[in-house]
């Protein structure tokens, strides 16, 4: 089923970090979608902290049947009918993310660099690139992500550091003047975005060490959490109380860079990051939706589904949101947490409950871990033909 493709843990983390970085670079909803930007870093911190147990729970469930996806798990636990229903809900969730991200990129380009082009042009092209990536296989997306994530993180941090002269610590003070309680609800925004990591469960069969899923998910949450909080701090310190009125905060931050009257206007950097991160994210979710559908329907190959799904995503994207402000509204407190968190938490709770009641996995699961490991190791990085190690005897000894 995995047609010989493999994903290393690092590649999984890279994929997820880029997925999270995409939203943070474009909209940074933790700042732009809240009333009180000064508190938003606390909210993001809380969201990050809450995402850690969520990730561990996902990993624990995934470890019951190592090498199985959330779709297969749901069917095994809930039975055919209910399992298919849960799987279908996930497919819709994943697919809508792909569609929504394409809209996000299109709107972001129109709002930033190319105001005269219709947003749909960008969305369609990004979807096409993502579909090509998804059709090339998860291994290709994984490798691309592994290459991109280093550059993306380095550039992202550069953008946050360069406008140091604009930042005022006083903009961040006082800390929590209203107390902790009013700040916390906003944490659900970032928690909901972190929750998209459930897509990682769909990749479980491809991992070289499936039983380390927990480690991977936690490192994803920690890395993106640190970057996210750094971004929030930088944006709020630079723009002060009006930070939430900036539509594209990181882009705006980059626009204001001026170092030595030469290094100016580095908005090319966030543009590059969000374009690359966007197709990686859309590619990932197109792939995940296609793979999930093919598992529900029992298809041998997910590939024929990728391009129809991409077309569908393009068709759906104009309907999803009114405009950029609709998008902001969608990601704000009123909508996104209600939708995403409910869905993620409820579905996971259902799966967890079923797993508790059924008590499946256990020893069988553990022995399967070993099998999966033994199978996975030789082909790591996909030479697919690595023979067993035979102590490297060197010439000249």
């Amino acid at each position, binding site marked *: 089923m995995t047609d010989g493709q493999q994903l290393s843990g690092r590649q999984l983390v890279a994929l997820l970090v880029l997925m999270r970085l995409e939203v943070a670079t474009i909209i940074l909803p933790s700042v732009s979608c809240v009333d009180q930007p000064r508190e938003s870093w606390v909210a993001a911190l809380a969201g990050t902290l809450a995402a850690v147990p969520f990730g561990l729970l996902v990993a624990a469930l995934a470890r019951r049947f190592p090498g199985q996806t959330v779709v297969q798990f749901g069917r095994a636990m809930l039975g055919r009918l209910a399992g298919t229903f849960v799987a279908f809900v996930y497919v819709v969730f994943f697919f809508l993310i792909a569609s929504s991200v394409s809209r996000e990129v299109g709107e972001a380009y129109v709002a930033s660099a*190319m105001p005269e082009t219709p947003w749909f042009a960008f969305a369609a092209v990004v979807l096409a690139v993502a579909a090509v990536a998804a059709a090339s296989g998860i291994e290709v997306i994984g490798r691309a992500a592994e290459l991109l994530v280093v550059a993306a993180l380095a550039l992202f941090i550069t953008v946050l550091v360069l406008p140091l002269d604009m930042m005022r610590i006083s903009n961040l003070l006082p800390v929590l003047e209203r107390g902790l309680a009013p700040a916390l609800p906003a944490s659900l925004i970032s928690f909901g975005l972190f929750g998209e990591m459930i897509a990682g469960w769909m990749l479980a069969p491809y991992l070289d060490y499936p039983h380390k899923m927990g480690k991977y998910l936690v490192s994803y949450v920690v890395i993106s959490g640190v970057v996210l909080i750094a971004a929030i701090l930088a944006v709020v310190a630079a723009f002060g109380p009006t930070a939430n009125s900036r539509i594209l905060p990181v882009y705006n931050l980059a626009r204001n860079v001026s170092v030595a009257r030469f290094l100016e206007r580095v908005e090319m950097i966030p543009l590059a990051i969000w374009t690359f991160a966007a197709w990686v994210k859309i590619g990932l979710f197109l792939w995940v939706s296609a793979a999930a559908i093919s598992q529900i329907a029992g298809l041998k190959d997910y590939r024929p589904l990728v391009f129809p799904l991409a077309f569908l995503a393009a068709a759906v994207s104009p309907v999803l949101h009114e405009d950029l402000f609709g998008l902001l509204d969608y990601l704000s407190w009123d909508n996104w947490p209600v939708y995403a968190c409910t869905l993620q938490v409820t579905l996971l709770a259902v799966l967890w409950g079923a797993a508790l009641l059924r008590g499946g996995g256990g020893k069988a699961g553990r022995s399967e871990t070993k099998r999966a490991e033994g199978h996975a190791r030789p082909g790591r*990085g*996909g*030479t697919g033909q690595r023979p067993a190690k035979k102590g490297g005897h060197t010439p000249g000894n």
Partner: protein
Amino acid sequence: MPLARSLIENRAALAGAFGNSPDLVLRDLQLSPQGPEGLLVCLNGLVEASLVGSSVIEAISLMDQEDAALTDPAKLLEALRLRYLATTEVVEVSSMRPLLRRLTSGSCVLLLDRSATGLAVHTAGWRERRIDDSPSESTIRGPRDSFIETLDANVAMIRRRFRHPSLRFEPLVVGRATQTDIVVAHLLGIARESIVKEVLTRLRRIDIDGILESGYIEELIEDQPLSPFPQILRTDRPDRVAAALLEGRVAVLVDGTPFALVMPATITMFLTSPEDYYDRWPVGTFLRLVRYAAFAVSMALPSLYVALTTFHQEMLPTPLALSIAAQRRGVPVPAIVEAFLLELAFELFREAGLRLPRIIGPAITIAGTLVIGEAAARAGLVSPVMVVAVALTGISSFAIPVYSMGISIRLIRFPLLLLSALMGLFGLATGLSLLLIHVCSLRSFGVPYTSPFSPLTPGGVRDSVVRAPIWAHDRRPELVAHAKGRVAARQMPRPPKGGPGR
């Protein structure tokens, strides 16, 4: 077809096989007064005439009384083979096909009447090019030899670098008409057996009339034939091949080609020069960084310029934007056309300079610099900034040490240019994304093209953008070879402890 016992029949068969070709030499020999008649066959120009004279004909005439008295051709051949023929290799041949093959490889064959076996004596010697400095990959520090067109000499150049017998050469013959000799070299115990086997399998699958250059082989065995990127490294430096063998890679040498093929190749290898390892490591690392920058510049600089000046003028620092705008005033064409014109002109001059007889070369250079650099800009056809950008791009592509990669990148530049003219930075990003997806899906003999960056391998990264010091370079590329034990531990030199106070 076995040889006949009659010399006359064999002679007719040989003459017939070559169609009475003028370069076929059939020389009658009477070995001894009462012995059988003999025939010495060779192809003129493929054998060293003096060697045939001294080691075969003269050697036969020096037979002692007892041997010269032999009348049984089999015994006579045995005696000749063991005692008289004075060359390194003497082989018995008893059928036509190997006999012809020996002849065309430069042996001369001795046939006797009443005997269905002959002796093939290795006397090959044709005009060879002198072993010279590498013309396509020159270095300041490093060995000064490079491959030539003769397979034996090339094999010897590699063998000379390995005294340990674990260096293995697997011979193959490819090509129906050319029957080209091919040798697959690898280090036993270091190269992965599966990769060696895969190389051999792919080579054996080839069925073609002729192989005239290693490029034929390259195109017939690469993983992704439709990709613009080279997936097999070709080099004319024996030291580079030796280094690759030490990393566990496999080299293919083709007779008649001064280039060896090295596989599996990953993208970092194309940005590597042997000199990186000969100079000290900070220098090597710096040069690598320069080359990676050159790689990026030669791929994307003109596109970036077009995207910025056409779509995103606001992103340039204001003084720079003003200066570019001032220079572009009066240029009658949009930036993209300007870029295409200049790029095409550059390619024209490069190609013309390459193909022309060497004596006329400077004329082209003068015309190129005058016409492009000065006149075009002064006539207002192109802006000077664009000239700078295109020239920088061209120079950068020459800084890529492997020619085949440099030229691939030049090809990729044009679609990127078009995309950025259509959609600005977004177009450029789209083009680069598609390129990245393509590169990530490439493999060379099962090894991902993007390794050691992705999948990240600790041994490989030490020899990628950075060149780790030799004593820290203790692992081979993991996906290619059995990794460990390259350099023994704790080799970093340190000052001696507790010496007399200085």
